[in-house]
């Protein structure tokens, strides 16, 4: 099961965070800082999975952006690693430019893919369908 998904830059600033398990607001910042530290400390040749408290972290770096997913021990790390890439491919398909100003839309996309910590959709067309429909309606 997926516990949280974070998008953080190399400076450790959170660009997006989604928790699928309740974490107190006050504790999020320090948790995220720890997560980022854990991932930044890793070298390129090391594997993309880190043990972190009760979770496993699966991280993937895209330029200066890290996407980190916290998962439970029984989850399949490699499938999550590829899920992250699928997510990025979807973002890439939708956004022509920087995504950081469209926090809401990234969330909407993510909500289509992961629900309550489960992977519910991976078909790119279907992931984007509701958002594209929204855009269309907002236009008219």
């Amino acid at each position: 099961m997926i516990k949280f998904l974070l998008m953080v830059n190399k400076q450790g600033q959170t660009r997006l965070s989604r928790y699928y398990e309740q974490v107190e607001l006050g504790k999020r910042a320090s948790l995220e800082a720890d997560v980022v530290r854990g991932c930044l400390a890793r070298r390129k040749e090391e594997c993309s999975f880190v043990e972190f408290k009760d979770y496993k972290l699966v991280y993937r770096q895209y330029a200066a952006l890290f996407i980190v997913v916290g998962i439970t021990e029984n989850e399949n790390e490699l499938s999550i690693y590829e899920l992250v890439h699928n997510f990025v491919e979807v973002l890439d398909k939708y956004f022509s430019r920087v995504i950081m100003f469209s926090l809401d839309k990234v969330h909407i996309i993510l909500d289509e893919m992961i629900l309550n910590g489960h992977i519910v959709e991976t078909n790119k067309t279907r992931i984007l369908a509701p958002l594209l429909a929204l855009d269309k309606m907002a236009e008219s």
Partner: protein
Amino acid sequence: MSDVVEKTLTALPGLFESQTGAAKITNRLRQLIKSITELTSKHEEENLIKRELSAIKEQVSSPNTTMKQMREIMVRAMYCEMLGYDASFTYIHAIKLAQQGGVLEKRVGYLAVSLFLNEGHELLLLLVNTVLKDLQSTNLIEVCMALTVVAQVFPKDMIPAVLPLVEDKLSHPKEIIRRKAVLALYKFYLIAPNQVQHIHAKFCKALSDKDPGVMASSLHIYLQLIRESPDSYKDLTGSFVTILKQVLGGKLPVDFNYHSVPAPWLQIQLLRILSLLGKEDQSTSELMYEVLDESLRRAEMNHNITYAILYECVKAVYTIHPKAELLEKAARCIGNFVLSPKINLKYLGLKALTYVVQHDAKLALQHQMTIIECLDHSDFTIKRETLELLFRITNAQNVTVIVEKMLDFLCYVPIKTLTFAPDNSWFIQTMNDVFSIGGDLLQQDDPNNFLRLLAEGKPEEDDQLRLYAVESYLTVLKGHTSHLPQCFLQVMSWVLGEYAHLQESVDRREVIRLLTQLLDQRSVSSETRVWILSALTKIPEGQTDLILDLAESLSSSQDTVLRQQAQELRHLSQDSQLREWVLVENSCAVDSSLSFLDGFVSEALAAGAAPYKPPHQRQEELSLNLEPYSFSLPVSLSSCSITDRQSPTLLSVSSGLSGNSAELSTLILEGVKRVWGKDGYLPQKEATAPPVDEPSAAVQPASQQEAAERIEPRPEPSTQNQDKQQLASSLFVGLGVGSSVSLLGKSEAPPPRFRKKPRPHESSSSSGTSKRSSDSSSRSSRNTTDSFLYGSFPEEEPATSISTFDHTPKSTTANGLSQNKDTKEDRHANTSQILGGDMVIVRPSTIQDKHPPSVSSDLTALLPADLKDLPHSDVISLTSDPSLSLSSCRLFRDEALLLVIFISNCTETVIKDVAVQLTCEELKVCTGNVMDCLEARSTSVCHYALLMDDPHTNVSLTGTVSYQTQPGHTNTLPFSGTLSTADFIRPLVVTTEEYGKLWLSLSHDVKQNLKLLTDAGDPLRTTLNALKDALQLHVVDIIGSEGIVACRLLSGAPCLLHCRVNGAALAMWLRSPHPALPDFILYHCQRALAHH
């Protein structure tokens, strides 16, 4: 501002420079993000967000703010919350936005709600009506987002309100609506399973939905349901198998593919479901073998995602009822993983291996070298996973090495492994390491359990353990102590307080001084101080001056508890009567009936208190959980810590319970499940005296321990590699089954024959063997007169001796040579009758001429019948004088070298009192023989059984023959000879599997390149045959360019040879449990090949 403009602005944020109203607010979002990016300190961030939040506050309360602007404000609020700042004043506006906004605003409103509010939040109730309205909307987008939010956060109590609507959506024409409805129902099932019980049939309909997306979302429900009760869903197995087949067969629309792999995450989900269904169910498992096989086969493409599927598939194969063929394929897949240069795959391979070794430990053996490499991997995660794997294969034989590895690596040792502790000192030492490194990270129970273990033992039995602990702690305390964790200090002070008196040699003043020293340290917590003071209280009197000093210095302490304890300490040390009364030596009688409270109780009852009721009764009445209180009652430690010789923690528990619970008050020591118990020592005790025919235990601990303790470096070039090999053999020892060294396959049952072999050292069985032989020798010397055969033919006579020595166990023959076993066994039975120094005199009727009998092979004809068939060496002359001539011959018996000495009388007169003395420092030789007389021209044969326990290159023998030609005139004739280790090498008949298993359990190895005999067609075979002829080796198997050969030192230590053709040389790798044996065998191999 038109929607169009705004949409453009948000979608293409990089473009906008416009100055319109909405844009100004949108601009604020952009500005905010930019400012956040430029932040350099936390302080700046705080200021920025504070400003932002007050701006947002102002805007949301302004009546002029439009819904569109509100949407931007919500995103900004999300940002603030994301950074950890409270923006709860916006929550209500998020709900309003969802209520009143247009589609995009509504979606953002719902999004904000799902981000801001958790399931129990009261504001969610305000959302219910909006959701109800949207669920009934004709706008599909609105229905869609309502379903999404319902599946994310929805108040549990309001589920009945929306349930009919959501159920309706299950038959909606649009797949996305059906899909989201299924997911919403899944959520309902998770938070309120009772609410959705009646719609199980609808889940089933969703599973068979024509749309793959709807079907896929129903799998979440099924995975959950099947996890809870697999038996109720066995009938669906066929459906899941069919679905997986269709997915594998590419029947899904192409947009379900991810990098050309059809719906990988769906496949993974199905594999998980199948493994749950097939677990411990053969008939269900049979339904899925085919599709699992196909799934393993399909995953050929070299992409991460196929490996992710493979991993799941391997897990499934090992979870369901096993099928050999599939297991083999899955095991091969794991090989691809762990050997992959891609680090992520290696990780997943280790994880898979960790999973499968729980079902089949021998798989670890196949990858042992990779595991060893991973153990030293620079990547923390890989290392960690490897330790996890090792943890799963921990057994009594490899526990020391594995725990050592774990300690090297991290401070947490799963305490469970310590139940295998092989001995006291190791246990205490390891616990010291655990406490000092892991210390305060340990679970609360660990120190207590450890102390309980120390305290529970019987005084005689466990005093040794306690003594060891005391000594070890004194050493620790004499060193640098400021870095030690509190819990370790507590453990030490308790043990010293309790048991320091056991150690006579310890100066009590020294103990007091060390403990007092701790009190002076600033790093010591006040809780630990309490422990230390309690310990000081318990140390027997006599050092009043020190104690008084201490009490004095503490009486001004700011800590009241310490002050109180110091006070008590002072009183006790001054009043020995009080002390005796309080601190009763060696007794911790606990009044479990709590009778001393009777007065108090009756008083309380009289005063109107309610009578005591046991907890379960109270629970029934109140349905409140009262449990947690019992252990956390604050009890003044000072009041009870000295009343008993127990650890303060235990005490506080027992007194904290007071009269409340009769059961719990007996907590002290008995009746508690002993987590560590004595079990830690039991396996070890069993291992020292294993039943003779129990597998492995006798052979393996020794080699493993040697491996762990041995430090001497080997003069080999590849020391590092060797170290790894050695580590491997100590780590994977005792995994029961399996093997894998290059040409070795898997094996089934352990070979019982083989395991019986005694160790070369002090193992009980080997001493049994030697005892047996010396036994028989002593008997034989008693019976020498019986077995001398004067003038008769030996063939007729052995019957007497057989009856005398009928005690020899036949089972030893099982160790024998393999060829024509039956006859050999018979021979064994016979020869062993005369094992030892026994003599048979033969008077050959043929040799009647005057010449001394020449040293010739026909002497061997004189051998007793039962020895004739043994392989033997040529007869060589030892010495001679005018009267006697001595020759010898070596006979190769399985368990001994028989040295046969032929003593020939060259004279025409009777020679009397012939006595042969044979000595050899390196060998066990049986005592000499005395013959009353040796007739003229006759030859007597005497033989000695020689045993070699430790190999020596060459062994020299010396001996004398004394005899009397005339009465009263004794002649002595000295002789000498040499024997080589080669004479003591015997073939070891094992199968390839047995060989493989043994190979892994052996730790001493040597590698060398030898000459390859290339003169014949097959160099390897020729060379091995030459070695076999020269050294009596057993060639186990030859496969391709590799050959495996086995031998042993008599019936003792085995030595395995692994030979591989390496260019023009023969790379030989020898292993043995005996440290020196490989070297000797190598030496003889070299000689044999050089002489060839």
